[in-house]
C-alpha cells in the first residue's frame, strides 16, 4: 500500500458515512425509539409521568412509521406495546383494542398461521381470561396455542403457561374433561418450568388443579402438600417482588 492509498482508503471509509446515515437513519431511529418504549412499558407501575412519557413516545414512533412509509410488520410491535401499557394502566377495553389491531397487523403481514399472529392471539386470550371472559379466552387458546407450541416447542415456559391458563379457563367453564387431558399432558413440563413462572400464576393454576382433583378428575399433589396450590407455590422462585428466575423470552 502506498502512502496515497492510505489517504484514499481513509477518505473512502469516511465518505461512506453520509450514505449510511441516509440508509440507516429511519430504521435505526425507529429501533431505538421502540426499544425505549418497551423499557418504559416494562418498568411502568402506574406512574402518571411515565405513562405520559410513553404515550408521547408512542406518538413519535407512529409518526416515524408514517414518515418511513413502512409496509412491514413493525406496526404490530408498536401496537403490542400500546396494548400492554393500556392494560397496566387499568384500561382493559383499550388494551384489547390495541392487541386486536396488533394481531391484525401480523395476520396481514405474516399470515394467519404465523408465530407472531398466534403469539398475539394467546396474549389476547390471556387478557380475556383475566377479564373473566373465559369462553373468548378458550377460543383463542385452542386456535393459536398449537401454533405457538409448534414454533417454540412444548418445553418452553410460555407454551406451558398458556396450556395451564387454558386449563383454568376450561375448569371455570365446567369443561373438566378437556381441562384434565391438557393438565395431564403438561404436568411434568409445568414442574420443569415452574421456577420461571410468577407465584400468582402458580397459585391460580394450583387452584384449578385442586378443583379437578376434588371432582376426581385429577390426581392429588405429592403427599407432603395438602393442595396443588401449596405444592406449585413451593416451586416458585418469585419472592413477591415480581422478579422470577430469568427465563427465555417468548421468542417474540
Amino acid at each position, binding site marked *: 500500500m502506498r502512502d496515497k492509498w492510505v489517504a484514499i482508503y481513509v477518505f473512502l471509509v469516511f465518505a461512506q458515512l453520509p450514505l449510511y446515515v441516509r*440508509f440507516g437513519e429511519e430504521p435505526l431511529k425507529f429501533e431505538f425509539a421502540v426499544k425505549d418504549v418497551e423499557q418504559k412499558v416494562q418498568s411502568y407501575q402506574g406512574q402518571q409521568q411515565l405513562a405520559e412519557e410513553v404515550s408521547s413516545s408512542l406518538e413519535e414512533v407512529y409518526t416515524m412509521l408514517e414518515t418511513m412509509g413502512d409496509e412491514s410488520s413493525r406496526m404490530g410491535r408498536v401496537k403490542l406495546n400500546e396494548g400492554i401499557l393500556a392494560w397496566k394502566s387499568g384500561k382493559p377495553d383499550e388494551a384489547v383494542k390495541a392487541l386486536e389491531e396488533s394481531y391484525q397487523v401480523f395476520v396481514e403481514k405474516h399470515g394467519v398461521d404465523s408465530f407472531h399472529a398466534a403469539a398475539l392471539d394467546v396474549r389476547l386470550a390471556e387478557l380475556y381470561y383475566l377479564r373473566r371472559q373465559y369462553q373468548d379466552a378458550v377460543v383463542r387458546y385452542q386456535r393459536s396455542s398449537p401454533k405457538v407450541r409448534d414454533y417454540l416447542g412444548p418445553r418452553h415456559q410460555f407454551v406451558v403457561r398458556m396450556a395451564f391458563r387454558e386449563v383454568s379457563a376450561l375448569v371455570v367453564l365446567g369443561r373438566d374433561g378437556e381441562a384434565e387431558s391438557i393438565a395431564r399432558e403438561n404436568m411434568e413440563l409445568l414442574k420443569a418450568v415452574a421456577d420461571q413462572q410468577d407465584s400468582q400464576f402458580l397459585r391460580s393454576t394450583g387452584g384449578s388443579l385442586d378443583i379437578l382433583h376434588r371432582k376426581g378428575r385429577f390426581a392429588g399433589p405429592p403427599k407432603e402438600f395438602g393442595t396443588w396450590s401449596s405444592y406449585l407455590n413451593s416451586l416458585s422462585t418469585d419472592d413477591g417482588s415480581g422478579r422470577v428466575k430469568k427465563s427465555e423470552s417468548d421468542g417474540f
Partner: protein
Amino acid sequence: MEMENSANSSKASFVERISARLSRPVGAPVVDLFRILTGCLVLAYFFRIFREYSTYSADDGLLDHNLLRELFWFTKLTLVFPGSSDAYRLGLLTLGALGAVSVLVGWRPKLGAVVAWVVVVSFQRWNFAVINVDDSSITLLLWWMLFLPIGQTLTWKTFRGRSDWRREAFLRVDGFFVRAFFANLFIYYLTAGLTKLTSELWREGLALYVVLNLPLARTQGLWQPEHVSLLWFGNHFTLIAEPLFPFLTLLRKGHPLKYFGGVCWFMFHLGIPLTIGVPYANFALIIALVLVFHEELTDAFRKKAGSEQAEVLSDWKAPRGTRSLIVTYLLILFLAMQKNVPGLKVAWEPGMAALYLGGVAQEYHLFDWIDRFNWTIYHTIEVTPEGKESFEVPSELLFPKTVRGFIIQSYLMPMRWMRVPRPLTGEMRNTTMRMAARRFVRNESELLGGEGTVRVTSRVGRLDKDDLHGDQLWTVTLMTFHYKDGQVVFLQPRIPEETSREG
C-alpha cells in the same frame, strides 16, 4: 519549555524503540509463502462462491436480496445491486478470482488483493444473512495482504527463472506487519477461547457433542450419548488450547513447546473442517502457522538454498500511514470483541460498525453461542404428483446440507443467525420458505412432474443436557404447497402475497 521538549523526545524515542523492535526483519520467502498459500485459499473460496452462485447470490436462489437489503440496510453499499445481471455478477466474481491469482503468482499482488477484497466484501454484503467465519477469514487474509511486505520473492519471476530463489532465501524484510498480524491472532484466539467459558454447555463438557450433532456438522447423527465422555476431552482441549495458541508466537525459535503447540494447532484446525465444516477459516489459521514459524522456515529455506550467503535487507519500507492505520485497526478490533465484557461492552457495537465501514468486519465469538443456537432440524419431504403415488425425496434438495444451509434454516426457528430486527423475523421466515419451495420446484421439475403437492414435515428442537439424543424433538408440518408449471401456491402455512420491494 526545555523539559517539555525533553519529555516529547523521550516519548518519541520510546515509540521508536518499540517500533524498531517490532520491525526486526523477517525472512522474505516466508512472508511470500504465506502470500502464495493465501492466494490458493482465496482462489478456492472464489470457486466456492461460483459453485454456490445459483443457491445464494442469484436472484432466484434461497435468499430474497431485496428483503435482506431492507432488513440489513447497512449492506446496501456493495458492487452487487438488485437488478444487476448474472453476467455482471459472474464477471465481478471472475475479476475477484483474477485478483486472487495475482496474489498467488506475485504479479502486482497488492493490486490483486485490493480487487479480490472489494469483490469478496461486496458478495458478503449481498449474501449477508448467511455469512459466517469462513467468509470473514477470507476478508481478513486479503486485508493483511494489503499490508504485509509481499511480492519480494517467490513470484512468477522466480518460477520462470528470472530471479534466483537461492538468493531470495537470504532476503529479509521489515517484520512490523508480521508482528501486527500476531496481535490479530491474539485477539482472535483469546476472544474465541475465553468467551467459550461463558457458555454452560462448554463448561459442562457437552458443547462439542452438541455442535457435532447439529445440522451444520458433517458428522450429524454419528455421535451417541455414550460418546459424550470421549468428546468431553475434545471439549476441554479446545477450552485450554485455543487461548494458548497465540502464545506460540512469543516462544523462541526451535523451542520444543513451540513444535508441540504447532502440531496441536495444525491438528485442531484440521479436525474442525473434517467434522464440522468451515474449512476456509480453519485453513486460514493453518496457513498462519507459516508466519508463526517464520524463523524456522527461513532457516529451512536457506538450508535448501545450499550456499551460505550474506543476508540482504530489502529496501521495502512500510508506507507512511500504514503502521498507524494497522494499529488503529487492531485497537478497534479489540474493542469490537468486547461484547458482554463489563466496562468495555459499550465499545463493541461502534467497534463493529467501524470495522464494517472499513470493509474488514470480523467476529471471533466462535461457538460460544452454542447454548442459544443449539437448534436442530430434520425434514421429511413427501411429494404427491397429481394422480400418482406419493414418494419421499432427500431433504438436501430443499436446503443444502452445509453450514450456510443450516444458517438459512435458522431463520425458520426461534433463533437469528444475523440479528433480523423484531418482528421482521416473520417476514424473513416466510420468505425463506417461499424461496426454498420455488427453488425446489424449479430444480427438481423432472422429479416432481408438472403438478402436485409437497409436504415438508420437520422434527425440530434443541439439543442440550436434558435431551442429548434428540428424544424430545417435536414434529411440525413446516410447509405444504401445491405446484403447477413451476408456480408455487402455499397451502400451509397460509402466507400473504408477496409485496414488491424496491431495492
